[in-house]
């Protein structure tokens, strides 16, 4: 993607914004904890994938035996298999870390798509108003009544497993996530639009595009970032959710796929808590760390009067 002038300008503005807030960010307790956990998980995913062997499907790497003899199924944790094996003699730990890595990618891509769409539509709707605004509002209504999950099912159900790549799923999740964030961006843009410095810019004969990129966008850059984070979190939830019932990406191992495998293998019935507990915890902490980051960022970017009688 060729960075155009407005985009570069935005990035530089974001960087300068960051500079002044960086100190504050890293003294915010929530942010630090969340960031630490998230970073830890990312590292776990990458380093873990690197250390483990790369193919989750390989049944014989550790056992040294081709095929899958019964003794090697459903093994409890051991040195060779930190989390044991599944119903097909595959290493669960590998599935976890590779799944984590892939899920992170899917979520990152989906979140980027959602953020770009939401920002663009929000800017257009907020700044231009008029018919475009109405159309955008109306469509977002639709997507908010019928939840993303159901539409995801509707779309992905008709697609055969072979065609369900991570890329496709990421794109679909990304595209479906725009209503909520768009509303937020829209209301922020409308707020800023009514402020003084925009009127000054208008008086100085800036074109609408210039106003949007130079004046409004830098101010909402911090919120765009917040949107990214929450989209990321939502994407994880969506991917694992549909993956768990088998309609997630089928070409690679993701956390959703791991869940599905777990359910298919009957982890619960066997009582193989070492299987489903770590996987679940990873998802939980992933979401929770993102939430903390989000809250921390909100506190810093949006310092509302902290000492109201009943503190938020």
């Amino acid at each position, binding site marked *: 993607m060729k960075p155009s002038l407005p985009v570069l300008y935005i990035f530089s503005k974001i960087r300068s914004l960051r500079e002044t807030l960086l100190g504050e960010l890293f003294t915010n307790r929530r942010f630090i904890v969340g960031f630490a956990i998230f970073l830890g998980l990312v590292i776990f995913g990458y380093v873990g994938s690197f250390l483990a062997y790369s193919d989750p499907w390989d049944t014989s790497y550790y056992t040294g035996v081709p095929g899958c003899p019964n003794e090697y199924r459903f093994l409890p944790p051991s040195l060779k298999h930190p989390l044991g094996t599944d119903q097909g003699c595959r290493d669960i730990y590998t599935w976890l870390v590779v799944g984590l890595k892939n899920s992170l990618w899917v979520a990152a891509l989906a979140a980027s798509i959602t953020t770009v769409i939401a920002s663009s539509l929000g800017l257009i709707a907020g700044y231009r108003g008029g018919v475009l605004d109405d159309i955008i509002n109306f469509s977002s209504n639709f997507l908010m009544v019928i939840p993303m999950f159901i539409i995801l099912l509707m779309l992905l159900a008709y697609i055969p497993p072979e065609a369900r790549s991570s890329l496709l799923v990421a794109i679909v999740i990304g595209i479906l996530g725009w209503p909520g964030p768009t509303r937020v961006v829209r209301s922020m843009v409308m707020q800023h639009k009514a402020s003084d410095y925009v009127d000054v810019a208008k008086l100085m004969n800036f074109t609408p595009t210039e106003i949007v990129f130079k004046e409004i966008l830098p101010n909402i850059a911090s919120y765009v970032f917040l949107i990214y984070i929450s989209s990321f979190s939502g994407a994880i939830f969506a991917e694992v959710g549909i993956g768990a019932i088998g309609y997630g990406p089928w070409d690679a191992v993701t956390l959703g796929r791991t869940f599905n495998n777990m359910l298919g293998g009957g982890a619960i019935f066997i009582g193989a808590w070492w299987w489903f507990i770590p996987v679940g915890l990873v998802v939980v902490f992933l979401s929770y760390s993102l939430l903390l980051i989000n809250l921390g960022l909100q506190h810093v970017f949006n*310092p509302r*009067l*902290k*000492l*109201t*009688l009943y503190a938020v």
Partner: protein
Amino acid sequence: MDYVVRTENLKLYYILPRGIYVKAVDGVTIKIPRGGVIGLVGESGSGKTTLGEGILYLIDPPMVKMNGRIFYKLHGGEVDLEKTPQETLEKMRGVELALIPQYSMDALNPTMKIGAFIKDIARYHGKDPVEVLNNALEKFKLLGLPSTIIDRYPHELSGGMRQRTVVVISTLLNPKFLVADEPVSNLDVVQQHVVVDFLVDLVEKGSIETMTIITHDLPLILEKSRYLLIMYGGHIVETGSRDELWSEPLHPYTKLFLESIPSVGVRIEVKRIKGISGNPPDLRFPPPGCRFHPRCPFMMHICSEKVPPDIEVKPGRRVKCWLFTVKK
């Protein structure tokens, strides 16, 4: 002087994000005399609303009491409002201490009918709701509000109606000490007279013992009050009886303030631009020393360095100005 409320070096600041303090009330020691109409006068942003809420001990975040004490003189003895237990304080509110808030526009619960609110108040003060409601209806009538108002929701009333409603509700329990913060700001001239007369009448009849009106509308308060406190930049710069202040204002600010009123009969709101050059101080970064010194025609060197002390010229008559420490 028999006083109803007194403060000791009261400092009320607003704490804003990033560690900024708005020093709305910055060391105020006053006595509010008992009985009659008292005026607390000052420009917008002088801190008078904060002081008004402070002496009623309505100190909520982000307002913080940095220092000082507030005493309320009940039957005989003094009560330190800070040390009063919560339940006692609740019982006092509305009956001993009352406020007509500046935010009367949204002082009423949007999902509650006016009548229902009044009944709740009555009940929680152990009074008969119907009796209180009828009392309210009479008062509504006096202020030109229809009796149907008790069945209305606040959003169904205009701003002026809401303000008058709040005036009635705040005075409903015949409070001993009432603070009226800009009680007529949203009303037209005719209604302003009506409401002011209504309030003054209540004082004169004895339903309300002492009423402190907070306003920037000097002519209004000059007419009706017997004692005035002039506030500027978080300080009380002068106090005294209305006649004394009018005939012989001591503080330069008071002098200029009074001079900015046109003399004959026409009541015009005092505007900053007209009377005194310069701007009121930003209470986040108030000027050192006397708050008024940047605009004072009599400024001396010491005025920009040290805060002038409160000088008691006579009992009940005080000035916060270096001019009055010079021995003649």
